[in-house]
């Protein structure tokens, strides 16, 4: 067999595995609903500038049209400073998704590495890392995030760092658990036998095989990171004003809830739909990636 043929063969095999997952996922109606909603939000966020200009619509005040209900010009109405709520929600989606995904990325990279080291080497490493994680876990994650943001100051980057750091322990635990179960498999022993280095074993064999639980946890994690971000913004520790952020919109709209329900309702619905869709998708992925669970 030539090199090309080997490549073709493996890629076909890989494709086969993922298409099987996709086939199973497609059968799950709720998961598909979640995927559809989250895709719509992602598309809105990507094309936010095309749909509504940031400087001219999303943050431009026009106090003469403040607190107006949904209408043809402003399909979700205007807020207390006369800004278009729809434009703010789609630009807010950009912020929320960005913070959610990057925060989870930070948590997966740091937590995953720590978990992999702990699981792979065991012994002293394992003890030190996991006891440190236990201490982390003892602090409620939202409190930890509040402490980090107050210490670093409010900015989008700090928000990502805060939310990311506070969810490190859960990834460390998951990765460690799956590394422990993979570590004694025959193919690892085989790799070791042909003299592969630890880094190669971890990167080439262990991580790809422990990806499934990370994907599931990551999807659910984005949801909880978005929720944490909204929570932090709600109490005034979010990103810089006047940038739109769902939690901050919810918070400033709550004063007007009796006169203008839409100011606080629509950002709330946006948060709810995003979290719900990510959770549905995450559950669906779990079932699709591990078919034994269903049987």
């Amino acid at each position, binding site marked *: 067999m030539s090199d090309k043929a080997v490549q073709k063969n493996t890629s076909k095999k890989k494709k086969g595995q993922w298409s099987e997952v996709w086939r199973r996922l497609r059968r799950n109606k709720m998961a598909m609903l979640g995927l559809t909603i989250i895709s719509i939000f992602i598309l809105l966020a990507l094309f936010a500038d095309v749909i509504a200009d940031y400087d001219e619509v999303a*943050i*431009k*005040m026009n*106090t003469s049209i*403040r607190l107006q209900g949904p209408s043809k010009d402003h399909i979700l109405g205007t807020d*207390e*400073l006369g800004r278009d709520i729809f434009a703010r929600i789609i630009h807010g989606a950009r912020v929320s998704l960005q913070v959610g995904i990057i925060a989870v990325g930070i948590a997966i990279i740091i937590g995953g590495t720590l978990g992999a080291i702990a699981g792979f080497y065991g012994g002293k490493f394992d003890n030190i890392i996991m006891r440190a994680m236990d201490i982390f876990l003892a602090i409620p994650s939202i409190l930890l995030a509040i402490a980090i943001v*107050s210490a670093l*100051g*409010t900015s989008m980057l700090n928000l990502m760092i805060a939310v990311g750091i506070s969810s490190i322990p859960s990834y460390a635990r998951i990765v460690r658990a799956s590394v422990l179960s993979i570590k004694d498999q025959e193919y690892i022993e085989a790799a070791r036998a042909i003299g592969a280095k630890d880094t190669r074993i971890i990167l080439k064999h262990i991580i790809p095989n422990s990806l499934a639980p990370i994907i599931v946890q990551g999807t659910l994690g984005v949801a909880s990171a978005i929720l944490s971000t909204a929570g932090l913004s709600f*109490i*005034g*520790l979010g990103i*810089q*004003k*006047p940038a739109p952020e769902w939690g901050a919109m919810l918070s*400033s709209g*709550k*004063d*007007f*809830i*009796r*006169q203008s329900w839409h100011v606080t309702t629509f950002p709330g619905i946006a948060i709810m739909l995003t979290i719900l869709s990510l959770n549905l998708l995450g559950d669906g992925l779990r079932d699709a990636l591990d078919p034994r669970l269903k049987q």
Partner: protein
Amino acid sequence: MFKNKKILSLVITILTLSLVLSACGGSKGITRKNPADTLVVAQGADAKSLDPHATNDQPSSRVMKQIYNTLVASTVDMEIVPALAESWESIDELTWEFKLASGVKFHNGEEFKASDVKFTYDRMLASPSVSHILGPVKEIKVVDDYTVQIITSEPFAPLLSHLTHTASSILNEKAVTASGEDYGQNPVGTGPFAFDTWQSGDRITLKASEDYFQGAAAVKTVVFRNVPEGTNRTVGLETGEVDIAYDIEPIDKNLVIDNAGLELIEGPSLSSQYLGFNTQKAPFDNVKVRQAINYAVDVQEIIDVVLEKAGEVAKSPLMELIFGSNEDIQGYSYDVEKAKELMKEAGFENGFKTSIWTNDSPVRVRIAEIVQAQLKEIGIEANIEVVEWGAFLDRTSAGEHDMFILGWTTVTGDADYGLYALYHSSQHGDAGNRFFYTNPEVDKLLDIGKTEVDTDKRLAAYKEAQEIIVADAPQLFLYFSTQNVGENKAIKGFQLHPAGHHSLYNVTIEQ
């Protein structure tokens, strides 16, 4: 399928009906839920302490006003009238003599005497939070049981106004000594209401004092409830759980006005809001930049949008009811072109980056947002930093800030209290001058106002000082807020005091 539709239409009908019915309710009077002789007052924060020397914040003062009396009191028209002192005279430039009322009893049964006055003011002078209110008072001399002299180290014209402050309330020596550290939770005064219980964070209950020296109050029990959310205070009024609600949110005002069972009382207050500059930090050390910002912000828009019009544009530091105010000052008007010109002259044609600090009060955050948007027009990019209240005070008094939003209430109604701490160069930082503003001319005029006994000369000094301050613009002058209170229509006799602490002595409840 048919069955489902039936159920659906039933549900829709019920929902519609309940909406219609709930919208109809409440148009005719609101039945009070409290006992006939119990008055429930809701305010936005719990008292910190009921020891007048331990704190100088409004929620505490509002409760202390009912428990204590001062030697002299100010009426709602800011006139000074006798209270525990029956009469007073100025013996010489440095000595005031007060004749005290006799037969006044403290709530613990002790009789009020000159020794209590001496004890109180000596203790007050030793308190870091309120000693500044007594200013240059040096010594309290007991002449006899009902005569007391206050001696100052230099002439101190606004003394009487300062003695009307709730922090100058008279305490009982025996009660303070007996409670020690816990006095703030066991206050004893001579006022119309005696302290009963305090459920921290929830409510403070006061009982009418039967032998109050001006006659017992009509209401037997007063409950101060802590209701932080403005919306909930209005809802409390609407459900009849609350009789009087302090500080109705601007947006809720119409709900109270339109409700046939409620009444909204509005009146002037002695407080002004401002956006201060750190005048020692570039670029705010340049007076042209400070003036440019004053021209660049449309304050009327802030009042319309954030306060629902409940305020008056501040053209000078003091509102008209305060002694020493200068109504001839024209101040700054909204003029973007002029602002741009001044920025150009100052060498900031392309603007600069800076920050606005505020605490997390929704009104102040909204002000910051509008100012941020309007400063963008003249090229200034301002970040809004929401800083927790304690840290906000600490860091602004350390001078770490660029711009900050804060208010000041001239509780005594005299320009000395309203100007000295804010603009005198000896008061930099924590004492009140967070602009770090220094102008020897202003210092001189404020010193004259503090020590000069001649009323006309004081007035002239204060008027001139304010002209200089407005020209120097250490702050963006925002507004003088009007204050409001919502009450059940069954409540009679409530009057707003411009200082923000309202006496409940004359309030009655109609059945």
